[in-house]
Each structure stands twice: as C-alpha cells, then as structure tokens.
C-alpha cells in the first residue's frame, strides 16, 4: 500500500520535475531572446563582418572589393600617419595614465587620514571628472590660450616661459595631458574605498614590529590596495587609447597633426574619406594593441599585485 503510494509520488515528482525543468529552460531562453538577438546582430555579426571588411576596399557606395592584406601592409609601409598617430596616442597614454593614477592615489591617501568633512573633499576632488569631455576641452582652450590665457598670464607674471600650448605641435599634447590629470580625482572614490578596506590589525602588527610610516605604506598599504591601482591603470590605459571627443572639439588633430590621435585618424578615414575597409583594419590593429597591452599588464600584475585570496590556495 505505502509502496504503491510512494511509487505514484515518485513518478509524479519525476514527471513534474521534468516539466518544470523544460518550462524553466523555455522561459530562460524567452528571457534571453532580446539580449541574444542583440548579441548576434550588433556584436558578433559586426565583428565577423568587420574582420572581412578589413581585407577589402570599400567606399560604401560600391560593393567591397577583396584586396587581401593590402590594408594592413599599407598601414605600416606607405601611410606614415598610422605610426605617427599611434605614437601621439602612446605618448599621451604613457604620461597621462600613470600621472593620473599617482595623483588620484595620493588624493585618496590624503582623504584616508580621517579628514573632517570627508564627503565635501571627496566631492571637490571628484567633480572635475564629472565635467563632460567637451566642456573640459572648451575650458582648457580658454585657460591655455597662448596670448591672453589665464595660465600663460600667470606664468609670464612670475617670469616663467609661457609655452604656446595649442599653437605648437610639440606642446598641444600637454593640453590633453593636463586635462586628464585635472580629471584624475575620478579615481579617488575607488582608491578611498580600497584604502578604508585595509584591515587595521595589519597596521598594528607592523607597528609592533617597529615599522615606520614609510615602511607601513610600502609593505602594508600599497600591496593591500594594489588590485585597485592595477584596475584603474588598466581601464585608464584602454580608455586613453580611445580618446576622441576632447580632441575633435578642440585642436581637431592640429596643429600640423601634432594631436592626431589614433581614433581621430580612424574617424577621418572612415567618415571623411569613406575608406571603410581601411578603417576596419585600423580598428582591428587598435584591438590587437589593446589586447597585447592588457596581457602585458596582466603578466606584470602577477608579480606586482597582491590578492588577499591567494594565500589560502
């Protein structure tokens, strides 16, 4: 009797479970439909198509013509502006990103000294990074105006040389670096939360062992916050290779291509000269460069970054 009841129950359960599972799977894929459709149409499809386009000559008006690797060859042989724009972008990145991380981290350290009115100071440091890139560019065009701009007027008043800033191909890049450093407070929120997360007993232990302020910073604070430093460094680097808006609205690549950033050049190739195939190749080269840099930084971080979870393994 009981046996029979159990059997019925288990059969019912199994069937019920089965239908529940099937239903759940169907519901799951219904829920995922918009995302998956979007992924195929707006991400995967375009990736494959852009790879194809990069081997073609395509001016939008007539169908793409297969030209093999000619675009890639041209990029690094004939077209001098590719290495030039890469070099400009690289110079900008190599100065602006580390400087931004150092400034942001220093501000985070400062705020971590139990300041009264913490949220006021944090807001003040953070504010410039909320200003749209376009407004920042206009602001710095005015501040760094070479004849009457505030900064040059002050520099002349104290007897320092006043650079031409926007007017000189060699100094124009510094306008953008200064803008990036001005926005460096954007990292403060992250640095501060990670600094506050360092366990105080580590500091106490270090003090007992006779570590001074510098040693406590070097051997406790820095390693414990290194994952966040690494994260902001990596994302900052990727973002700075794609700088566009502030350049487009201000110098627009000039003077004498002194600020021809890579993305600006890509924009011109694709939307002014309508060389879509060549621009697709440029996009892929950018992707490869970012990938290589990411891998390099990840490798380096294996040695420099400390993850608290590692010890347990």
């Amino acid at each position, binding site marked *: 009797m009981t046996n029979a009841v159990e059997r019925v129950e288990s059969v019912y359960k199994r069937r019920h479970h089965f239908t529940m*599972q099937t239903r*759940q799977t169907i*519901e*799951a*894929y219904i*829920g*995922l439909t*918009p*995302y*998956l459709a*979007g992924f195929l*149409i*707006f991400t995967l*499809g*375009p*990736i494959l198509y852009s790879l194809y*386009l990069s081997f073609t000559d395509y001016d*939008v008006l007539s169908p793409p013509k297969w030209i093999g690797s000619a675009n890639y060859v041209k990029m690094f042989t004939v077209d001098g502006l590719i290495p030039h724009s890469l070099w400009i972008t690289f110079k900008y990145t190599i100065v602006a990103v580390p400087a931004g991380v150092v400034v942001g981290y220093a*501000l985070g350290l*400062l705020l971590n000294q139990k*300041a009264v009115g913490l949220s006021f*100071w944090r*807001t*003040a*440091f953070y*504010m*410039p990074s*909320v*200003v*749209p*890139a*376009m*407004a920042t560019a*206009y*602001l*710095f065009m*005015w*501040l760094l105006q070479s004849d*009457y701009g*505030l900064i040059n007027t002050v520099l002349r*008043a104290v007897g320092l040389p006043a650079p031409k800033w926007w007017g000189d191909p060699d100094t124009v890049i510094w306008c953008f670096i200064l803008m990036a450093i*001005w926005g460096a407070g954007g990292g403060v*929120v992250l640095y501060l*939360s*990670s600094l506050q997360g360092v366990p105080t007993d580590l500091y106490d232990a270090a003090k007992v062992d006779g570590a001074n302020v510098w040693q406590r910073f070097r051997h406790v604070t820095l390693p414990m916050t290194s994952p*966040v430093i690494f*994260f902001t460094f990596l994302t900052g680097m990727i973002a700075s290779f*794609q700088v566009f*808006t502030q350049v*487009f*609205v201000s110098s627009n690549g000039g003077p004498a291509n002194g600020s021809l950033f890579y993305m600006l050049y890509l*924009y011109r190739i*694709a*939307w002014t000269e309508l060389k879509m195939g060549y*621009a*697709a190749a440029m*996009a892929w080269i*950018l*992707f490869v460069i*970012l990938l290589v840099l990411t891998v390099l930084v990840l490798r380096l971080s294996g040695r420099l970054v400390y993850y608290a979870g590692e010890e347990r393994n």
Partner: protein
Amino acid sequence: MMRSDALTSGSVRFNRYLLGRRLGRVVFYAALVLFTLLFLSPMIWMISASLKPEGYVFEYPPRLWVPGAVEFENYAVAWSQFPFWRALGNTLTIMGWNMVGGITTAVLTAYVFARLHFPGRNTLFVLVLSTMMIPSQVTLIPQYILFRELGWLDSFLPLTVPAFFGGSAFAIFLLRQFFMSIPRDYDDAARIDGCSTFGILWRIIVPLSLPAIGTLAIFSFMGHWNDFFAPLIYLNSQEKYTLAIAIQQWQQVAVMGAGAYQPPLWVHIMAMATVLTIPPVLVYFFTQRYFIQGIVISGVKG
C-alpha cells in the same frame, strides 16, 4: 624628586607631541584646501567667465565677477544662435529611450542568469562578460553600414534601438549580483500564491532592486549626456542634433549672423560649457550615495 622630574619631562614630551599633531593637522587641512582650490578653480573660472561681459574674460588680474555687470544674457544670446532647446529635447529623448531599453533588457537578462536553471547557462554568462573586452571600435563600422542599409541614418533609431537588444555587460553583471542577494524564499512564496516566473521578476525582484536599478539609471544618464561619437556619425541634419553635437557645430562651424561669418564669443562658449556641465554635476550631487556604490562595485568586482 625623581618622580616629579619624570612627570614634567613626560608632560613636556606630551605637549610637544600634541603640538606636532596639531601642526600636522594644520598642514594636512592646508593641503586639502590647496588641492580643492586646484581642482575646483577651473570650474569656477568657467562659470565666472560665462557671466562676464565680453572683453573681460582675459583681464588680469582676473576677477570672479565684474561688479554691476553680471551678464546672465550671455546664456540667452548663446542659445538664440542655434536650435538649443530642440537639441536639448533630442538629447533627452535619446537618453530616455536608452534608459528604458537598456535597463529593461538588462533586468530581464540578469534575472534569467540569477534565478533560472537551464542548459548553457554558464557558457552564456561567460559570453556576456566577454563582451566587456570587445572595444566598440571593432563593431562601429559594420554597425554603421548595417544602419545605413536599413535606411536609419540621420534618425534616432541607431542611437536607441540597440539599447533594447543590449543592456551593457556591466549592467547585467551588477543586477545579477544584486538579484542573487534577494532571498529565494520570496520567490517561492510568490510562486505558491500562483505567480509566474516573469510575474516574480515584475512583482518581487524589481521592486526590491530599485537601488541597483537607480544606480544604473544614473550611469546611463552620465553616459548618454556625454555621448559624442555615435550622434556625430549618425545624425546629419541640424534639427536632429543632440546638445553636444549642436554646441560643437555652433562653436566650430560658426554663427551665420545676417550672412556674415562670426565666430562665437568666449563668454558664450563658456556659457554653453557650463550648461553641458550642470546636469551631470547636479545628478552627482543628489545621487552621490548610489553613484559611489556603483563605482565601487564596478571597480572591486568588475
């Protein structure tokens, strides 16, 4: 004797310690004030310049304002030189659709990953996360060609429709984490009461996740207010420009006043830069807590 000596020297040392501490605090707050001035003064100059009569923007030594001549008209003059209100409306329209579309899809996708068991779940989630690695440039040109084939150029469609099929990987990840922290008992109770799978999402999960959804709305606002590249390549006619594009065109292509070329004045450019800056600053001020939470989550877990 010995004892009182030790006491006095101790208190002297203590006093000196206090003094050093106090001095340290003074230096510390001086540094804070200095950095605050350094970071805020360009913004203050921007606002100050936007309110000056033309001809005073480059005066030296600079004044915060010119007494008796605070020119609020600078704003009115600047936005009378191009279709400002129309452009603002366009920006808000595009932003609104992106918020609705992006968040709806992200909520739905995150819910499926957080609550439902189905074959291929882990593989698909890794796929979602991996899209974070793909730089937008690689998909940019084919997308442009696609929208061109569809006849969508010079319309809002390329700027809004993808949001309904996307939801950024970051948004999906953040929401999934949040949904997983909601006890499943609520789901079970609702299901016993006859709630369907998507009914649970709408009646239980969404109302409990408003803080996370709010955070994403803020990020969406910041992102689309500042968006420049996509509107630049997709919009060609002046009446469709977003605010950023309209201001850029006005600033660079210049004002056609009675047929004469007349570049905009610095005071007007600074006024428009201020207009661009105010909304994100206000949003940051009023939603600081959510905003900071969102940033910390993205940094620590992203």
